């Protein structure tokens, strides 16, 4: 039992930062991501301790993290992404216009679109692994990814167009 505990502990140490980063990328908020990551680590630990023959894999860890994020997101509203340059204290030049445009574009996407893009571009998962994490077929994952890409591209191009236009005004 002690040996198994050590093994599980080593897995948690190995994955804790990546779980945190994934949660942050999905939630957009550091405090919420910490809570979600903590819950994910707890579920991972409990499952592994109760199933001594179980060997964790990265897609399984991402799946657990995703579930923890979804549970937390349903209890707390998602953090918005800063849209206004002034919020950054005049650091737009350092922040990079590209990043602001990406942020604006991401805000336009649905949670599902954002999610599939995170798994594919942030975690660098294959479409097969994305399918495994999302619990869908590989074909469905490819279709979902394709649609998300198109929507992001359109939103990104629109965001870049806004920057060069008159800017935001009173609604």
């Amino acid at each position, binding site marked *: 039992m002690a040996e198994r505990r050590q093994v599980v502990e080593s897995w948690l140490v190995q994955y804790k930062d990546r779980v945190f980063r994934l949660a942050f990328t999905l939630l957009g*908020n550091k*405090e919420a991501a910490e809570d979600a990551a*903590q819950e994910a*680590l707890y579920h991972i630990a409990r499952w592994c301790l109760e199933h001594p023959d179980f060997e964790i894999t990265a897609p399984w860890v991402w799946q657990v993290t995703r579930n923890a994020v979804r549970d937390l997101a349903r*209890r707390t509203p998602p953090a918005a992404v800063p849209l206004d340059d002034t919020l950054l204290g005049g650091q737009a030049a350092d922040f990079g216009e590209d990043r602001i445009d990406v942020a604006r574009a991401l805000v336009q996407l649905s949670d599902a679109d954002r999610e599939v893009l995170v798994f594919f571009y942030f975690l660098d998962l294959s479409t097969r692994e994305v399918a495994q994490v999302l619990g869908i077929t590989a074909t469905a994952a490819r279709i979902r990814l394709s649609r998300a890409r198109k929507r992001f591209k359109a939103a990104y191009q629109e965001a870049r167009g806004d920057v060069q236009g008159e800017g*935001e005004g009173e609604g």
Partner: protein
Amino acid sequence: MSKRRPRQSDPETVLRAYWQKQAAPLRLSSTSVSEALRRAERDGAIHLESRPRRAIKRALLNLSGLAVLAAVGIIVVPRLAKGLPHQGISSGTTQAAQAAAPQPRILAMTVSQNHLWLSEQQGTSLVLQSTTPRVEAAPLSRPSVRLPHTTAITARIIFSGRSGLWLLHTVSKGWVLKQTQNGGTTWQTVHLPQNVDTLSSVAAFLGGNHRLILLGTAEDGMDERDVQTRGGWVSGPATGLRGAIGTLWRQSGHLEASQQGQTYVSDNNGQSWRLSAVFGSAHSRSTGGVLQALKMSQPNLWAEGLASGTAFQRGLTRWVAVSGGIWRQSRLGEPWTKLSPLPFSGAAVSVGFVSDQTGYVLSARGALWETVDGGHKWARAR
């Protein structure tokens, strides 16, 4: 074609770089691992001691317990857990005492008609318990409601204002809506149309005549407004709201919804919406507007995750609990006042005030905090 071929203006390349740069510096503390393991071992009832040693220890405890009983000559009956004192908790509780008596984790909290309701696990059931001593004034006919066995901890509890209680929660796929009109003795599942089941985010509130109104968004961005009528559910027109709804304010048919940095206003219970204030405006009076007003006074709060808090409305007064602290707005249009920082680390999942002075905030870790001075000082309640 390789998906990873970099191009200067390739939005996908920019997207990958954006996330890498944002998340790269993040590190989770090493204590998170030990805490996760400790909780897993405790909850899974996995002990480090061997079974024979546990059995001997248990036997010794039993023997010593019997000896005490014999000496005293009485039978000790375990005290039942009591509800929360309405006047506030004793300040003499030390951290050591709290650690020695682990509190059950509060799973959800709701304030309705000046009563605080807590839901926590009791055995295999989830029970919603009123903490107000004057139970005859409680919105339900009894002070506790046994929730359906399958209730998830993310359930949203909506009181009808009379004797009814709605329970809306998510399941693995979709949403479940249940109603009780007899204090939880029986629950009826309310039919949800197929399109509502696919919603990724739902805000629920009571409209006129205690009808339940759901406002939701689906994965592809389509929006719904469903109002329960005698004939069933009615789908409303698409409203243009995308993504999950953050804060939803409601007053006499006037709704204000904050969503992904935008504020929308409806004057007809959600039938139509207009963009109320675009982020960045310095002159808008709108306070749906929770985000907008707070942003004008404290711009950096946005970067701290302003929208990841929770909100509560009582009469004309509003409170929000966000990562940066707890704020109050006395009336629409007035500036927001910061009452205090959050008394705990991590996110708040619920805030509610039973009076102008007494309020509660629930942390994501299930700890309940109480204030009796209007939100300036907080103490651990449960």
